[in-house]
């Protein structure tokens, strides 16, 4: 899990520029067939999340009418509703398109939040060591001792379901692993010569930490951010599936919840399959991209 080279050894990221680095990373990911496939799917998800509401035939809660003017309940896929309708007469395709945005939003926001949190905690804990580290590590142990799903269910049922709360909970769940990994990385980095050199040159501790060490753990942070997107999407779906999601928002998980409760598994496959497949494809695409990115970070991984 160690990056093959530190930034200092490569001569700094600065040479390439941020955009250049991103471009380079994408090109490398594209080199793996699975990575390219994942990127393609992911791009599709992002586009749908952005323009979904524009192209969707109905609103998520709109009731589709039959030609006779009756509510179109549980209509199989047809020209009226391409993916059929729910038992409330909602259009499955529209819900699916709207749900994409929710999935991406939860995934990205909680991933960013957790990685920022986890990276900061890991940096401080690993670099300063001693009592600070000890305290943070025990805190992390406690966080790892909390079973996420039950905890989230209780908090939601007490505080009331809402999308921001779900995002917050997922964030609180995801930071733990990131901080442990970053801490371990910092522990090895801080013994490297370039840290000594910076200290000898009179850099302050915080400067060393944020200017010299932090850039070297960033690639790892990005990796965990990607993994976090995967986790975030999955957890949101799980909570919504259990009926603890935001009732005012349509997400893939809540679609599965509704269809499961309505017994659609028996009768209306078109209501069950699309959200599940969308969820799986999204998660797998993120996974494929992270896998390629991981290999970029550490070629040795291929060996193990």
């Amino acid at each position: 899990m160690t990056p093959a080279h530190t930034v200092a050894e490569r001569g700094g990221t600065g040479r390439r520029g941020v955009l250049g680095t991103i471009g380079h990373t994408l090109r490398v990911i594209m080199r793996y067939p699975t990575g390219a496939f994942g990127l393609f799917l992911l791009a599709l998800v992002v586009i749908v999340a952005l323009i979904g509401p524009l192209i969707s035939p109905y609103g998520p809660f709109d009731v589709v009418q039959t030609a006779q003017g009756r509510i179109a309940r549980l209509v199989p896929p047809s020209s009226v509703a391409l993916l059929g309708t729910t038992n409330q007469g909602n259009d499955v395709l529209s819900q699916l398109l709207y749900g994409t945005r929710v999935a991406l939003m939860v995934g990205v926001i909680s991933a960013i939040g957790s990685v920022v949190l986890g990276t900061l905690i890991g940096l401080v804990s690993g670099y300063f060591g001693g009592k600070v580290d000890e305290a943070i590590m025990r805190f992390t142990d406690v966080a790892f001792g909390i079973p996420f799903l039950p905890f989230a269910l209780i908090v939601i049922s007490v505080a009331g379901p809402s999308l921001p709360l779900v995002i917050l909970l997922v964030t609180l769940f995801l930071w733990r692993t990131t901080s442990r990994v970053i801490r371990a990385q910092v522990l090895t980095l801080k013994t490297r010569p370039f840290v000594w050199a910076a200290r000898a040159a009179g850099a302050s501790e915080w400067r060393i930490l944020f200017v010299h060490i932090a850039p070297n753990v960033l690639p790892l942070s990005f990796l965990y951010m990607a993994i976090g997107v995967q986790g975030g999407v999955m957890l949101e779906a799980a909570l919504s599936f259990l009926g603890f999601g935001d009732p005012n928002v349509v997400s893939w998980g809540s679609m599965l919840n509704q269809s499961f409760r309505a017994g659609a598994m028996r009768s209306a496959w078109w209501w069950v399959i699309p959200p599940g497949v969308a969820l799986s494809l999204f998660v797998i695409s993120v996974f494929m991209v992270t896998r390629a990115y991981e290999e970029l970070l550490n070629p040795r991984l291929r060996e193990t």
Partner: protein
Amino acid sequence: MNNLRLYLLRRLALLLFVTAAVLTILFVMFKLLPGNPLSVFIDSNFSEEMIRRQKQLWGLDDPLWLQYVRYMWNMLTFNFGTSFFQMTPVRDIVVEKLLHTGAMIVPAVVLSVVLGTLLGSWLGWRRGSRQEGAVVIGLLALRSVPSFFVGIIVLMVFSYNLGWFPPGGMVSIGGHGDSFLGTILSLDFLYHLVLPCLVLMTREITSPALLLRSTMLEVKGSDFLDILRAKGLPERRIVMHATRNALLPLVTDVAVMMGFLFQGQVLLEIIFAWPGVGRELVTALNDLDYPVAQACFFVMALIILMFNFVADVLYAFIDPRVALS
């Protein structure tokens, strides 16, 4: 030996500390969060007697510290109070549900570990081949598919469409044996177990398989195997050395997996209508039956912590390097 004892003591202290911390968080959560469960409860239409009893149990009029101490004591002595609805001691409910959950998880984990280990050794053996690459990618992808969706699909196909297996539940209606043991030894139970167990396995098999694959590679390349050969040891002794080393990380993995499953199977219990502790938690929360919810949460947390502890301890015994680092 001294080192080992010190290590065990430290682990034990950590276990106690984390348990206490998790309990405290639970306490604070119920105290601080808006919509205090008791207010929900008291506003609803329960008998005076129950309200009094619950108030007493919670000691709502006492100072906070006393409430805290009493709560901690009750939890740590597994004195969870009485269910709002079922009128039975929560402890009995939770114990029963835990057993049910275990009845689903244990067979799945055992099968996953055995099959995963075999698969992993095969992968380690065939390293670099095309099949190996394909299987590894498949396993990794499998790990990222949400298992509750796999559960739904499996149910749709094998139960609703093909009708091979029951659509859920742990036993047929009226099929309860006289005892837990009687139940889980019945054919009817096994029949109900097949689908959820398979779904759990699709996910859980990946971890031992991938783990064993990489440790096998590592052990096969280690210098000490050469020396063992040079010493003129018989083949089976050498295999024994290799296996013992390759299995080391698996012990932790299995223990952690067990602990994690005790909370992660909530979704599958819902899908397969399995009367386990996770489903009980969801039901209790929907019914605002907070004593049960609290107890379910606590035992799940405790089980995770216990399994992690067991993993650490076992590992220290089988790998002498651990206790000293």
